[in-house]
């Protein structure tokens, strides 16, 4: 169905169900409880991030997962997409369609230029080239191109590009919401579903991002299963053999680079649609590093890995950074007094302001013990249960 074989279609179906029911699944605890306070994740901002960073990492995976080219500057395309979208808001108005189209186009162009230059080299040279080019873009966006008193204020520097009332917004009509919208449906409009003590938020922006995530996921499956995808995997496996088999690797890698750049542009555009402000920091090379971390956490070169990795990273970042000592005490209050204090002291370095440390450690653990990321972890667990079943290989290679 949809040009997919059964197994892939099932996967797409599972992701679709996940997207539709995320607002429910992510809010397992009833309102007002301490558990809800900490672990519920079913609120619009975070769910939007799950979807948007999912798109970003799916795109990154087409480059890094398939071809093995490790880009350390991918966040720059995300930023370029966001800037493009906010400029559309400023010039045309809050309609998201032109914004998203332009953000994809702009990032596509940027990635074409960056890819054309950096793909002349491979291995660590490629990584450093992408890092250097992206850092140049970041530095220019942060200061030189962001000075409000200069005539070329493209990015509004440190504060971030945002929409002012004095902006032209030529297509803005009186009935339009004063927020990014799709045909008048504000990205912020919500419906609340109250069941008992549970409150589930159904947010327009999230479902739009979710729709794009599904589209992005579908396209990525098609690419994985296409001859083009096969060539990309061949690039990763043995570039020399590919060259001596009459195939020109450069346009393949460049196409992969541009496609993943456009994914990043889409993600950047969507970020701006959900929150119309584009800050330069989202282009910094450590932000690119975070994309790498997400794709590794999920499982490189797998279909579902990017979505898992992005979700995992965003969830824990959000939860860990918000745990403070008073919350710890509340949680551990069932312990005897002295013991409670010791536990709080022990956990303290890893939460709140220490969330970087926890994620860093987690990331190292995954690379050392679980190079295939969460997907490999899942497979290992799955194997434990499926030991007795005979292995019947299918006609196509599984890529998961």
């Amino acid at each position: 169905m949809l040009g997919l074989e059964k197994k892939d279609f099932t996967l797409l179906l599972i992701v679709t169900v996940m997207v539709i029911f995320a607002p429910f699944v992510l809010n397992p605890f009833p309102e007002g409880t301490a558990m809800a306070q900490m672990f519920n994740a079913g609120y619009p901002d975070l769910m939007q991030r799950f979807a948007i960073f999912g798109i970003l990492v799916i795109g990154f995976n087409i480059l890094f997962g398939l071809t093995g080219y490790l880009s350390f500057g991918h966040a720059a395309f995300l930023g370029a997409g966001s800037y493009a979208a906010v400029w559309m808001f400023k010039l045309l108005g809050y309609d998201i369609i032109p914004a998203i189209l332009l953000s994809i186009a702009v990032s596509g162009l940027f990635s074409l230029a960056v890819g054309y230059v950096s793909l002349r080299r491979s291995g660590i040279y490629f990584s450093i080239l992408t890092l250097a080019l992206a850092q140049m873009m970041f530095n220019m966006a942060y200061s030189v191109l962001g000075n409000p008193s200069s005539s070329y204020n493209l990015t509004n520097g440190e504060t971030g590009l945002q929409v002012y009332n004095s902006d032209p917004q030529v297509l803005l009509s009186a009935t339009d919401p004063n927020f990014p919208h799709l045909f008048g449906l504000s990205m912020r409009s919500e419906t609340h579903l109250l069941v008992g003590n549970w409150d589930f938020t159904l947010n327009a922006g999230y479902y739009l991002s979710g729709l794009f995530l599904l589209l992005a996921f579908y396209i990525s499956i098609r690419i994985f299963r296409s001859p083009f995808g096969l060539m990309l995997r061949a690039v990763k496996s043995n570039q020399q053999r590919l060259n001596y088999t009459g195939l020109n690797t450069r346009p393949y890698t460049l196409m992969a680079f541009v496609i993943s750049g456009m994914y990043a542009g889409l993600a950047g555009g969507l970020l701006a649609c959900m929150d119309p402000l584009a800050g330069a920091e989202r282009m910094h090379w450590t932000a690119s590093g975070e994309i790498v971390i997400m794709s590794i956490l999920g499982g490189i070169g797998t279909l579902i890995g990017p979505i898992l990795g992005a979700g995992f990273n965003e969830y824990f970042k959000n939860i860990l950074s918000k745990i403070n000592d008073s919350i710890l005490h509340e949680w551990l209050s069932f312990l005897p007094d002295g013991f409670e204090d010791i536990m709080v002291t022990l956990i303290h370095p890893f939460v709140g302001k220490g969330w970087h440390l926890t994620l860093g450690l987690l990331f190292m653990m995954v690379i050392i013990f679980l190079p295939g990321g969460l997907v490999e972890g899942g497979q290992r667990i799955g194997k434990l249960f499926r030991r007795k079943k005979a292995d019947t290989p299918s006609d196509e290679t599984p890529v998961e």
Partner: protein
Amino acid sequence: MSKSILTRRNVLQTGAAAGAGLALPTILTAGSHSGYTNAPTGSTVTLGFNVPQTGAYADEGADELRAYMLAVEHLNGEGDGGMLSTFSSKTLEGNGILGKKVEYVTGDTQTKSDAARASAKSMIEKDGAVMITGGSSSGVAIAVQGLCQEAGVIFMAGLTHSNDTTGKDKKANGFRHFFNGYMSAAALAPVLQARYGSDRNAYHLTADYTWGWTQEESIAAATEAMGWNTVNKVRTPLKATDFSSYIAPVLNSGADILVLNHYGGNMVNSLTNAVQFGLRDKVVNNKNFEIIVPLYSRLMAKGAGANVKGIFGSTNWHWSLQDEGSKAFVKSFGTKYGFPPSQAAHTVYCQTLLYADACNRAGTFNPCGVGEALEGFEFDGLGNGKTLYRADDHQCFKDVLVVKGKENPTSEFDLLEIVEVTPMEQVKYAPDHPMFAGGDLGACNPGA
């Protein structure tokens, strides 16, 4: 559907009767509700403290967080009450705000506008925070202020010194207690003139981002007005650590004053390098070469060590102030944590009290009501003398401290000495001053 933001708490409030007891799901749309974002329903009210917990300003963020927790204690009637007793408005009685116990959630801005907005959004959308406060840089303050305006909650800015926060980027839902670049310049200029004369050649080194630019503009304008000549204005990259290649050209530039429009790590490094290169021992044009750091922070001054001695700057507040409010605050903060509070801690403590008091006086948490209560509010007893929250731009006007690095510190906290307390009138400016023009406060937004 309405375009307003709606969050869980206020929906629960209206939906509770219809939905909570029933097994059947109830569907609510945003349009079915009126009121304001995150109206507190139970016996508690939640405030969102959004401070840098990671990144270069993490230490300042930590100090802000300490002050917030102290303020919450005092509002809830615990501890010694701090400035509650010295504050000229007497609505705060230690029974929370409007009788509701104050609770709080914390978030990490990472000193990045994106991350700060994400964390503020999560506190508004998930935790039902009715007010967001904090931050340790102007970029973050402006970004979060914009978000709060859209979301319909009040933003009480923390440490933000750029003119733009209450100038070009001012918002009806945002309020700033901290002073700004213009006020620093206005307070410093007369002191500098008195000490260094009016025939001086100043060389500016400026951090190449929004705050640096506005401060450079303010200081250059104020010093030029008193007769100083600006030799050069040089931008330095934000990530620079070694400033030697920017300092070296100063040596033979003919300048006899170096203005460091740097903050945080930049300030520590550029000042250290400037002293290293012997600038302070130089005599140019028959005058002693002098360095000025327009915005001082004690936490940062500590990083610069002995290099700050004798160097002039301005600060919003300092723990050695001897008015009753400051003394009360230093006492309760010092007793609890063992060291005196920073200016960042002071400003966020005041902001929390001011917000709580405004709610009490307005009789509501509705941002429009709170905003109205804060606009044009005059108060005293919070450490900076008589203070006015101006209605036109939501900027606080109060005395500004001109300080210099202490020559003989008696303790590790005793780094700055107050040279002069510049009265409010002297640092005041018209709301439509060119440096602040172009902004639009807009109407207050109560959200849902």
